[in-house]
């Protein structure tokens, strides 16, 4: 298990709190040939795929539960969540452990690329064709060098109703 994140979080917070211009860091990952980014402060760690215990009465994108150092956390298959075709796990498949509204969940991604530092002006609003789909979790597009990253609001990854359920449960 490789822990990538966390060491920069405090510095990052300081900076963004200190002045309005402050840059932010994204963890970028790949999913079905597209690149996505999640704010680094949300990411707890990145782990390898392991055995997942399936859970009944849940949507298909909830792959099940894993044991993360004696804590049971749910795993969301991001491909299924986004309505993409399911793919068998490959060598690069990883679970990103993120903190969402006080809960810890894992999301399955095709590969984790790197940590990027970007400034707010690099973020553009998502094109209406994407935003119009009611995909509230897509918060923006990031132009980084020649790449285009889709910024995700991880708090909304579990759909509104799903989050309410999580909170209500």
């Amino acid at each position, binding site marked *: 298990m490789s822990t990538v994140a966390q060491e920069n979080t405090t510095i990052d917070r300081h900076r963004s709190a200190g002045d309005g211009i402050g840059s932010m860091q994204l963890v970028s990952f790949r999913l079905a040939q597209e690149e996505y980014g999640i704010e680094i402060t949300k990411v707890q760690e990145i782990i390898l795929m392991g055995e997942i215990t*399936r*859970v009944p009465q849940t949507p298909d994108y*909830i792959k099940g539960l*894993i044991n993360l150092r*004696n*804590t*049971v956390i749910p795993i969301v298959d991001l491909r299924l969540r986004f309505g993409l075709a399911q793919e068998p796990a490959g060598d690069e498949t990883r679970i990103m452990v993120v903190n969402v509204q006080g809960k810890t969940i894992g999301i399955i991604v095709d590969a984790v690329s790197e940590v990027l530092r970007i400034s707010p002006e690099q973020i553009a609003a998502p094109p209406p064709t994407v935003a119009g789909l009611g995909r509230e979790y897509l918060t923006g597009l990031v132009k980084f060098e020649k790449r285009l990253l889709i910024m995700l609001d991880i708090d909304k990854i579990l759909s509104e109703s799903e989050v309410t*359920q999580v909170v209500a449960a």
Partner: protein
Amino acid sequence: MTQNGSTDQLEDTDDLLGDFLDESRQLLARLNENLLVLDQAAAEVPAGSSIECDTDTINEMFRAAHSIKGLSGMLGFVQINQLTHKIENVFDAARKQELPITADVVDVVLQSCDRLEELVEQLTAPSNDEVSCDDIVARIAELLQSVGADRPPTSQEDAELNLLPPVTGDLPNDAEGSVQVPVTERWPTAKVDHFAGVVDEQSPAKYLAIFIDEADMSFDSMTEVLLSEGGVAREITETLLITSHRIKGSAASIGLHRPAKLAHLIEDILQDLRETGDGLSPTLVDAILRCTDAMRVYVKQLRDGVPQEDNFGQLADELLAAHVPASLGAAAAGDAPAETSASAADSASSERLTDRQLADIARLAPQDASALMGVVVFDEGLMLSGLKARLLYEKLANEGRVFYCDPAADQLDEIDDLRSFAFAVATSASESEITTKIMIAGVARVTWSSTPSGAAAPTNAPPSNAPAKSIPSMNVPPTEATQKTAAVAASAPPSLGAAAPTSAEGPGQPVKDAARPVETLRVDIDRLDQLMNLAGQLVINKARFARIGDGLRLAVPGKQVDLVVENIRAALSQIASDGESSISAARSGEEIQSLRTQLRRVHADVDVIQRELQKFNLLRASIVDLGDAVHQLDRVADGIQKSVMDTRMVPVGPLFTRFKRVVRDITRANQKQVELVIRGEKTELDKRMIDELGDPLIHMVRNSADHGIELPDVRVAAGKSAQGTISLEAFHRGNSIVIRVRDDGKGLDSERIRRKAVEKNIVSQADADRLSEHQVFQLIWEPGFSTAEKVTEISGRGMGMDIVRSKIEQLNGTVDLTSRMGEGTTFTIKLPLTLAILPSLLVRIDGDVFALPLDAVVEIVTIEPEDIRAVHGRSTASVRDRVVSVVRLSELFDWRQGSSQNSAESGRATLVVLGSEGREIGLIVDLPLGEEDIVIKSMAENYRNVPGVAGASILGDGRVSLILDPNALLDMSSRRSNPNNHGAMATAEAY
């Protein structure tokens, strides 16, 4: 003024706040309990008339209010302070017989207590809703005014508190004009033994342990502050002041008057310093440190149960000597000695019975009873000693007939500066018994005089005889007064011998070896949670070791391999030797030679194999060793788990006692008469469980009191007693704890429930008709069900019962309901002993491993496919002559994720029969894997709860497995059978 705003005035407020919360909660609980006793009594007398209540109860409540008042004052919680002050006034008036205790009074005080609880709870979770207590304060004032007892702080305790104004930083030298006592009197320079006659009472071991614990912390904090260099003088003084007050309070509350007295002295001095704004002089610091050390030694002796003579008296002198020069200065030097010597003389003269008094007593003494006489001497500078004397008079009157009192009893309260008073009482009690009764705060000592009992000293004997007898012993200096008491007590009749030795050993020896306290330690519950978690992990790992051991044992070849190899070797040798003759006849020498060589080689190889195989013996021995080690680990892990569990166990009593109040409030509101009977309050439950049980139990008790118990006239008409009974009991049953709430009310009306359930679309008419009575009752647990025709304030919002059930199920418990029309209703809650560890049966179903709580497993049977028959569209099997419906997990659960493995469709099936509350289902499993203690992990912590699944657990191999919830499975399977009710499943699936 917001209380929370003022809490940051002190550095160590956080610690103090914790202590304050703890203490005030306990005191409030106690107060509430006593009030309920009074309330009970009030209910038995006609409305408006006052009730008789014993002084001890009132005094205890007074003390509780006073303690909270003192502590809140210290910490600057103005509202709490004001309100408790008012409550205190009520009890003060009550114990002085000025205020008759009526139901109204009890009611107002109960409400005040509620308000206090709110105020106290607000400290933990500051909210914007300011709790106002003006109305309640006004009501109390009204109450007191009505009897003319509302007045400025007058009692001794009030005065004492005024010496300690609330710690508000903005009033640095605020004396609040309260210290009217001449300094000379408070700081007597003359040699006075402050500890003469101050005797500790016997303290209950339980409280002693708490005291010891707290005292140690207080001493540490005091020493630390005293030794700290620099810092603002005033802050140091204030911190010390608070700590010494705390020591004083806790010591006095359990009757340890000697350390209390010493702490009081320290407190007085510090108080004085705070008023003058002076810092502590080095000599004073030394003196206080010595006192702290002495108290520490004293407490240590208490802990060991072997108290020795303390040197508090001497220390007190040193303490005063260290302080007086600084505070009195030159001016006092002139005045003080004269005045104090005068008062000393005064005290000396009044410490024994005068000739005139003795003569009077002799004249008045009854002939037929033994009498005791003596003089009570009060602490110097005690304010309102007259009131104290009056109180003592009452106490003496409780013990026997007081036939002599000087000054006269009815004048006592009017004398403000009484130093001593003489009394004689006709009683069968011994001197030592009475001494303990009247040695209350403020009393310096009691000097006894020889008994002119009817037989020993006839009333008509010349008066001069009595003084002649008593004078020799009464001329002893005050310091020896207690020794004299001891001597008298020792010569008491043998029947009193048991009590006598205690006092004969002199002051400062209250604890016998028998009362040696249990040492306690306060621990943050989060740490215990963590420990519990670790113990759980240990259990998981233990299981893992056991598995590894089993695996190894199977992997190592058995001993027979050695035998086989040995046989081969023997056979080879055979061939080599016998064969030689026959072979040599047929073959050429060259061939024989090569054959021999090969044989030798094979022989050698076999030897090597044999040697290598012998190493397996070592491995086998190691595995046996491992088995032992695992076994040992098993025992240790179980021990740790059990010990951790034990540390978390608390008696259920306090939780139950809360319901007395609930029942009282309800009966007030609905004119019913209900008695709450509590049984098994010593039964212990996990602390977290107790915390979680409060709400569900309140719902049940409310339901019983509001809906269950009928109005008195209805009850009488039905041939029952007018007063209904609700019983709350707790007991162990097997591996569970059962809590039962039972009422003898009207019971549930199954027809009405049926009707209601159909109306509310909870079941279809057809199903409702098919349900048994017991099953009908279970419908009340359904969301949205309430049988109350009229929704009252107390219960019946129609949301109670399903929440009750889910709360209990969250604790892995079950709840059942039985009822009989006209006879009452019983709720039975069954809870596991612990929240965290569950003995369970592991099974494999469709490739996944599931845990089934062992409690619910009735039996495991193997059945042939033809044994499963369809009855009414449902699979059933006959198990030992009873019909059990058979379900597959895949039929109950909606899986949207593919299974990792497909179950092999075999002909024979294993059926695990699960049972709960009289219902049974047979669950088809691929393979039972065995029993294991598993650790329950919450799924809601990071995800949410899932119907049919009680939680998750981590297996020995690190994988997560789901714990099935037998109750939910039973529900799901019965719903499935009901086509009209597919909606329920559909909602469950819609997540």
